[in-house]
């Protein structure tokens, strides 16, 4: 796998490979890059932010309250596209607990009046 290290502005081009159960990182300039490369290879994760639509109009901004597996992002965004929020929420309120089994909750990052 080829990727770019984001641990510092250097942006080292990393090549990560697995041979016989051993993951090796090539191209990193420092130990942080190796750690990052291995994590991106074996279990890449992202915090996802998006909008949810209100059932009666309007939108509310949301995030996952922790990083989720990268391969769950598409499922989560598809879930968010079909979800309609039918009540008021405040910043920090949990709107959905681990939707699409992504392992994190979807919480509001702004206030929403509901209607």
């Amino acid at each position, binding site marked *: 796998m080829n990727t*770019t290290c984001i641990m510092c*502005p250097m*942006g080292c081009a990393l090549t990560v490979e697995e041979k016989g159960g051993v993951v090796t990182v090539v191209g990193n300039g420092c130990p942080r890059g190796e750690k990052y490369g291995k994590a991106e290879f074996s279990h890449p994760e*992202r915090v996802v932010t998006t909008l949810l639509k209100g059932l009666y109009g309007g939108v509310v*901004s949301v*995030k996952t309250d922790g990083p989720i597996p990268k391969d769950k992002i598409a499922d989560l965004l598809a879930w*968010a596209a079909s979800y309609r929020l039918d009540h008021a929420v405040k*910043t920090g309120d949990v709107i959905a607990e681990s939707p699409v089994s992504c392992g994190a909750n979807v919480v509001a*990052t702004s206030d929403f009046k509901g209607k």
Partner: protein
Amino acid sequence: MKKFDVVIIGGGPAGMAAALGAREEGATVALLERDDRLGGILNQCIHNGFGLHYFGEELTGPEYAKRFRDKVLSDQNIHVFLEAMVLSLTEQKVVRAISPTEGLIEIQAGSVVLAMGCRERSAGAIALAGTRPAGIYTAGMAQRLCNVEGYLVGKEVVILGSGDIGLIMARRMTSEGAKVKLVAEIMPFSSGLKRNIVQCLNDYDIPLRYSTTVTRVTGKERLTGVYVAPVDEKMQPVLEQEEYIPCDTLLLSVGLIPENDLLTGTSVEMSRVTSGAVVDEYRQTSAEGIFSAGNVLHVHDLVDNVSEEAYIAGRSAAKYVKGELPFSVTVSVTPASGVRYALPQKVHTGEGKVKLYFRVDKVYRGRTVVVTSAGEVIKRKKTLVMAPGEMQNIEIDKSLIKGDVCIYTEE
């Protein structure tokens, strides 16, 4: 005429931090915000990545704004004027504003903090050729329509410029159901953060082409497509290699300009490089008692730095009113080899430390940053990599300052 110790123009991240800084010194504060809520552009930046330095955790824009807003609104001695647009500012520090609820507002300020932020360069400013259909937006305008209003400007998108807002919008538009066909960057590098290139473009397989620009646009009522071409070393497009990309949307992320229109006609000394005022380490401009902070002073890449800078400006503005702002000889801080600008541009001699912020003019690897005063080296710092898109800083001892300061990079 109303009277306040400190009047802050702008209620975004800079204005709010300045207000809290001024309150720490006991000043009475007027905070004038043109929108109907505090928070500025943070309110439409629903992505995460804010606050790692300032709060030690990762927040979204609205959450970062809320932390400051809650503090500001709970302080009885900060008078917040909403929907209040400042019309004029004099060097005698009389601020005139207008709002729907109060009409004309006139305030005699003890000191003023400018915190008006910046605006985006428009299609006109880059003299974009072609027709004039709907479908061409600055990235920030599309961001507001999407994140605040809930409307998508189009479905097939080309983005010109790889500044952070452009990168962020590439991911946002994709998440909302649009297809981003290309991000074109005229420079051979991106001014955006690495992390945004990886997480906003690479994660979604959005192509980024360097040394490429949009040469013209087509479409009568609605945009139907754009022509892109590579640029030569003089940044001129190679028109023989023009390529047509059908799309209904062009987003522009081609630079930010500090909004200093209020200073037109005043004697405040301006920097041609930053388009902001020339300031000292207290963020005081050449007009006594007028301070400047945040994106109106120089365009930042991290809001954390804005908060820190504005906090200094707010505190200093309050100290100025109390007559406690240290007064001493100033020396100038000038950039040289490899450094595009450094800020503050003036520093007082005396005790304590001062942090110099600077931007380099291109990507440098393994360089040393050197600070001299009166020709003597007073600080050296080795760096792994420095990019123009990421603001750098270096702290120096004021006691070492014996004359004009120069900051540069060397091999």
